[in-house]
């Protein structure tokens, strides 16, 4: 057995404490989870069993059970829809809790089972469902149902449209029957629960490095002590003097064993140098600190009633370290609120003005005056924009003509979509995204894509109103006249094809395919129509920053359609490689199109995007825009949002077809940058060129990118976005990346980046769910980074450094003491002090500091983004600062120890009555000085003294005294040694001890203060400058009095000037007007001199 210098409890208790705190936190989370689990597991459900409806708990559902779900209930498992109360077997669900998409989704049952609407009927059903293994993708499901019906087997394909996901809610439908296919942990919802990103922040990485350094210090201290112990003990008079004999056992134990056990004993003695409580404190700090983001009113978006959301608290400080921002365009920089603006039909360009299409271009019918008159009126009639369809009928004849000429175009617009209609029926729903407050004649469109909605609405304004689709019939009203189309197939949109199409059958029986999609995906497939003119128009639209879609159609001959139908059916029922087969079928179908025209939809820029991007740039952050949009649109949005300046030299790397060409272009760009390094460069890359550039010429490309101050990547596929981020991440400087996005297509990049920010926008919540932080608007990014990020980084960096510092202070005297006690592993401090030092005496001030510290006024931080550069590259946790803190710790420890040692001198009495102190008094003296110094050192670091800081700082010191008085004032019955009895009180009764404590504390801090002051005055950082100014202004009156006269006069005049001046409005919404005032003054203070 090893003879340990401290009892196991001494070292074990802090560990126990750390584990307990962590366990309580985890336990709390577990308990919440358990509760909600119980709620879900115990929910009553009705299952069809042996011909009847049986009530059971949802946890009892087995695969194959037929479950009945009533309206507004949540599905307890992934179900394949069998039937609903409707004849066509359709039902509506909302998946808001899964992906946040609030639109109604229609799910349909296989016709054979749709008729089985009663329990009795269902009981007679004999069918087999084959489906794929459970998979996390919410939007993918493949299977087939083999129904045995009158001795005959019918095979039906099953797709996502027949799968009701657990967690979704039944809407608009009275009840449905479904058969459970995935239950419990195999449901798609559960599979998506996977613990999210295991992202580690840069601070944590450096923390681990520091820990390793401290481990090395620990081990080397132990080795030194062990070796010295044995050189010392070579002489017997030290090893075993007459007054200190060994037992027989000690004498006889083997040398090597003793050596090892001594080494281990030293490890135990010095183990406190490793701050075990660091991790738990950091975790608490992050957990508690992250609340401030959600609480921040400046990050609260009133219109949508959304506040910032923190999905992981592990990355708070990473927000202060961002080097690159990758942002999506649509919905992130822009509102994603589409407004139909222009269109090009058969080569003629039209503009929508007040619900009317006005031709424009080379042959303008309408005079200039007419136009300006209309636009002058427009703001008046804006309100009438979306009025009922009756108002559309007032359109003049020329519009009728227009419609006649181009009816196919508008039909295509109003048929080719997946828009839902909420016709407010009697069984209408009170909740959900729509409100039934509108008149019953009013149609409300709900679409998963805002583009579609805008287009359908625009068509309605023009006069072709989409009324609804029921049972595969789509109804449209053309100038009041009803037309029906049978919807035969929907070729869903996917981001690879970048188009969607529908196949409909008109009343006349002709079968038409309408396709809609990006120009690059439609135009190559066209064989007829005004392709060239349209292409020109599309480019013009794009230049204005509009989003364009091309519309085309194709007429099938009956024979052709048969082929199409067969291929689609085969692909859809395929069990293997269904996706590939479907893609193939789509490829086959969507060809030989005839171009109808193009639409242009405007997507407004979000508020303050330009300012935010400018601020990011000032903060030294490189902003890259990654978008799926066209080159022209992207560039124009980039220009309008300030991402590209007019003065910027824009380089292009687009339309590259081959490797060599791309390389040549890259080299040329690099040369141009080198030649012209005065002005800023912007780079535009498109998806295909990017993939070429990345394949072979990564280095060259990255070099070009790094020298450009703005990069715009257009035509990007979602995975490409992630790949670009990964490349930047692994580049030699190892920059910290941040990705902002709002849509499902941004999820991969959000997860790839160091920090992923989701915008809670209109395209569902998938991005927000997968992000680390979710905010409502792009502009909130500036506060999130410059204020919260900066604060969190400062806080945690100081927290980490301080923890290492205080443990060096703690244990170095112990090490030094070994030189005076023959390396006998005598502890300097009492074991209670060893235990409580990190838990009680020094834990709270640093925790409170790390929660509340604001070294600079938040408004200053936000208005002066350049301050962000001061903390970039993990500067406060560099090896240099780490060494500073460690050396500071060592020097403080030397001062405590040798101060006390010299005070003892030749062990003269320190008491007025001539009595003597012992070793425990000595240790307590060192410990007392240490607790005070370490606490006051924290106080020196604190710039923001709220009452809580005062309470914990002075409270900690007072607590130490009260505790020690109490602890040493009593003979503790359960302690085996009473070493500390009255030691503390005796110590305090010595005048010399008091003087020594004051002297040592002051000496320790003296060094630090001198360094701080010299640093501040000789080479101040921007942050320190900002602190000076903000203090001067914030406390103008008191502080000016303390300043040298010349300066004070200067400031006074400046301030009085300011008060009279009309100050430009600060662009941050400030909570308190008074502070706003201050912030403005500050701004002026910098800019003025």
């Amino acid at each position, binding site marked *: 057995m090893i003879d340990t*210098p401290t009892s196991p409890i001494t070292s074990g208790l802090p560990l126990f404490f750390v584990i307990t705190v962590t366990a309580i936190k985890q336990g709390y989370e577990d308990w919440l989870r358990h509760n909600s689990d119980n709620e879900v597991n115990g929910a009553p459900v009705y299952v069809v069993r042996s011909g009847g409806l049986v009530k059971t708990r949802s946890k009892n559902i087995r695969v194959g059970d037929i479950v009945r779900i009533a309206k507004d209930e949540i599905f307890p498992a992934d179900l394949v829809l069998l039937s609903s109360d409707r004849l066509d077997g359709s039902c509506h669900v909302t998946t808001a809790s899964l992906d946040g998409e609030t639109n109604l989704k229609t799910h349909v049952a296989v016709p054979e089972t749709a008729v089985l609407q009663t329990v009795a009927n269902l009981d007679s059903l004999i069918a087999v469902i084959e489906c794929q293994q459970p998979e996390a993708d919410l939007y993918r499901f493949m299977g087939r149902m083999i129904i045995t019906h009158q001795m005959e087997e019918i095979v039906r394909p099953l797709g996502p449209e027949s799968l009701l996901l657990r967690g979704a809610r039944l809407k608009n439908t009275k009840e449905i029957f479904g058969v459970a296919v995935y239950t419990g942990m195999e449901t798609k919802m559960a599979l998506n629960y996977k613990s999210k990103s295991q992202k580690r922040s840069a601070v944590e990485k450096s923390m681990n490095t520091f820990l390793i350094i401290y481990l090395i210090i620990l081990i080397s201290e132990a080795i030194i002590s062990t070796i010295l112990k044995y050189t010392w003990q070579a002489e017997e*008079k*030290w090893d075993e003097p*007459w007054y*200190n*004999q*060994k*037992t027989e056992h000690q004498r006889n134990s083997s040398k090597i064993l003793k050596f090892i056990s001594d080494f281990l004993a030293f490890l135990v003695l010095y183990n406190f140098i490793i701050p075990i409580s660091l991790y738990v404190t950091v975790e608490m700090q992050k957990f508690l600190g992250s609340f*401030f*983001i959600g*609480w921040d*009113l400046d990050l609260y978006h009133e219109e949508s009633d*959304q*506040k910032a959301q*923190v*999905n992981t608290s592990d990355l708070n400080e990473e927000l202060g370290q961002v080097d690159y921002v990758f942002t999506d365009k649509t919905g992130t920089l822009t509102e994603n609120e589409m407004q139909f603006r222009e269109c090009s039909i058969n080569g003629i360009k039209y503009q929508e003005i007040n619900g009317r299409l006005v031709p424009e271009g080379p042959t303008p019918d309408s005079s200039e005056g007419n136009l300006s008159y209309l636009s002058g009126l427009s703001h008046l009639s804006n309100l009438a924009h979306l009025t009922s369809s009756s108002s559309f009928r007032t359109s003049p004849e020329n519009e009728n003509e227009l419609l006649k000429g181009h009816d196919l175009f508008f039909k295509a617009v109003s048929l080719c979509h997946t828009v839902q209609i909420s016709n407010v029926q009697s069984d209408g729903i009170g909740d959900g995204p729509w409100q039934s407050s509108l008149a019953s004649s009013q149609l409300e469109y709900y679409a998963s894509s805002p583009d579609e909605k805008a287009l359908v609405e625009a068509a309605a304004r023009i006069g072709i109103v989409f009324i609804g689709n029921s049972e595969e019939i789509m109804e449209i009203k053309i100038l009041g006249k009803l037309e029906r189309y049978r919807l035969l197939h929907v070729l869903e949109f996917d981001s690879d094809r970048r188009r969607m199409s529908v196949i409909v059958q008109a009343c006349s029986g002709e079968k038409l395919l309408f396709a809609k999609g990006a120009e690059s995906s439609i135009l190559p497939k066209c064989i007829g129509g005004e392709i060239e003119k349209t292409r020109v128009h599309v480019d013009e639209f794009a230049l204005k920053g509009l989003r364009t879609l091309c519309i085309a159609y194709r007429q099938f001959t009956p024979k052709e359609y048969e082929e199409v139908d067969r291929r689609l059916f085969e692909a859809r029922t395929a069990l293997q490689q269904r996706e590939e087969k479907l893609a193939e079928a789509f490829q086959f179908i969507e060809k030989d199109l005839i171009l109808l025209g193009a639409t242009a939809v405007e997507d407004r820029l979000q508020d303050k995007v330009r300012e935010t991007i400018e601020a990011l740039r000032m903060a030294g952050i490189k902003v890259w825009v990654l978008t799926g949009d066209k080159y022209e649109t992207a560039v124009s949005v980039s220009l309008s949002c300030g991402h590209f300046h007019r003065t910027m030299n824009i380089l292009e790397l687009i339309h590259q077809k081959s490797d060599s060409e791309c390389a040549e272009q890259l080299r040329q760009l690099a040369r141009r940058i080198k030649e012209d390094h005065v002005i800023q460069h912007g780079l535009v890359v498109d998806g295909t060129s990017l993939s070429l550039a990345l394949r072979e010429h990564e280095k060259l490309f990255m070099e070009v990118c790094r020298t450009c101050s703005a990069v715009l990547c257009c035509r990007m596929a979602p995975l490409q976005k992630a790949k670009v981020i990964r490349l930047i991440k692994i580049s030699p400087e190892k920059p910290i990346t941040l990705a902002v996005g709002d849509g499902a297509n941004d999820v991969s990049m959000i997860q790839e980046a160091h920090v992923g920010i989701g915008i809670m926008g209109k395209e569902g919540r998938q991005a927000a769910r997968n992000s680390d932080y979710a905010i409502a608007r792009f502009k909130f990014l500036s506060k999130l980074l410059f204020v919260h990020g900066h*604060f969190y980084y400062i806080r945690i960096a100081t927290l980490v450094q301080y923890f290492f510092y205080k443990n060096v202070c703690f244990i170095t005297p112990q090490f030094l003491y070994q030189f005076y006690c023959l390396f*006998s*592993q*005598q502890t300097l401090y009492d074991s209670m002090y060893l235990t409580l030092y990190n838990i009680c005496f020094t834990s709270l001030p640093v925790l409170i500091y790390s929660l509340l510290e604001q070294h600079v006024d938040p408004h200053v931080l936000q208005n002066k983004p350049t301050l962000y550069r001061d903390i970039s590259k993990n500067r406060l946790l560099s090896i240099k600062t780490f060494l500073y803190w460690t050396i500071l710790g060592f020097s403080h420890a030397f001062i405590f120890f040798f101060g006390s040692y*010299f*005070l003892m*001198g*030749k*062990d*003269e*009495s*320190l*008491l*007025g*009555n*001539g009595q*003597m*102190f012992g*070793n425990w008094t000595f*240790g307590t003296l060192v410990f007392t000085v240490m607790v005070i110094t370490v606490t006051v050192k924290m106080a*020196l670091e604190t*710039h*923001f*003294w*709220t009452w809580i800081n005062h309470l914990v700082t002075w409270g900690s010191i007072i607590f130490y005294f009260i505790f020690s008085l109490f602890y040493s004032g009593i*003979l503790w019955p359960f302690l085996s*040694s009473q070493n500390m*009895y009255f030691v503390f009180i*005796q110590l305090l009764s*010595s005048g*010399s001890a008091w*003087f020594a404590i004051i*002297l040592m504390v*002051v000496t320790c801090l003296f060094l630090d203060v001198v360094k*701080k*002051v010299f640093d*501040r*005055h*000789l080479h101040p950082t921007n942050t320190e400058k900002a602190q*000076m100014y*903000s*203090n001067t202004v914030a406390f103008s009156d008191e502080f000016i009095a303390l300043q*040298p006269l010349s300066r004070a006069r200067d400031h006074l005049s400046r301030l009085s000037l300011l008060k009279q001046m009309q100050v430009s409005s600060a662009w941050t919404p400030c909570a*308190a007007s008074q502070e706003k005032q201050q912030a403005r003054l500050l701004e002026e203070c910098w800019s003025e001199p």
Partner: protein
Amino acid sequence: MTWSAAARGAHQPDNTAFTQQRLPAWQPLLSAGITLPLFFCAGLAFLGLGLGLYYSSNAIQELEHDYTGDADAGSCAACAAQGQGRAPPPPCSCSWHFTLSELFPGPVYLYYELTGFYQNNRRYGVSRDDAQLSGLVSALRHPANECAPYQFSAAGLPVAPCGAVANSLFNDTFSLWHQRQSGGPYVEVPLDRAAIAWWTDYHIKFRNPPLVNGSLALAFRGTAPPPNWRRPVYELSPDPNNTGFVNQDFVVWMRTAALPTFRKLYARIRQGNYSAGLPSGAYRVDIAYNYPVRAFGGHKLLVFSNISWMGGKNPFLGIAYLVVGSLCIVVGFVMLAVYIRYQDQDDDENDDE
């Protein structure tokens, strides 16, 4: 993991000073403007204090004598030589003569000092049983294991008091004699041996085991004295109130020292004619030389000292205060120079902007 915001749904956050991080706060800055006056003030205060401490320490007189007897020819050399290599060394007595030319102001304290003696060695320090010393009978019979090898005697009896600390009790004794006139008789100076240990140690922490039939000796029956002791513990002193575990010398010894050179209070001189101090004249200290220190290269010293409010003679504190105080002022001046110089530059920069 959406514990912060999502759980409560999207609502407007509270507009309170705490949630908005707008708590009223004092924001001090460590700028030269504030620290300069502080430095000068602190420096001056420290200089003043340092001077005071230095002089008050200087006013304290100390007289010490090494009576180990290995080098000098003092009478203790014989004892030292006699005890060499013998354990336990035979009793021996010697004396130290000194003369005071003027009054040694009182109250005078008599200390003994040992050097090279590691009371802070862990094996030594833990070798005691506080439960036994608090008079617990069970601990008296079964001393703690830490006491080994001084736990049980060779005969198997429990050692009381057990452990290395008790076993190595300092057992030299001193008596002080004063010759008022030269050639006159030596008069014994009364040594006040009371209250040399901490009051709490003597009165509360250390307790004898309950008396058996009114006798302390019976209470300790069945125990063995530590091997180095010549007498059992209940005969430490003839005074029944100062014997057993509750013996001033013993209690003083049991408070182990922090460093290998240490002093322990032996007696105060404050009675009778000597309450004002030791008057001038010749003095003799009779030493019962028992304690072997030469085996481990240690020394034994006798120290006469008087005491101020701050304890014994200790110039360190005063000097340290003086050093730190003057450092403060020097740095203050340097800072002032830097401050003024960079102040100008700062202003220039501002003007240039």
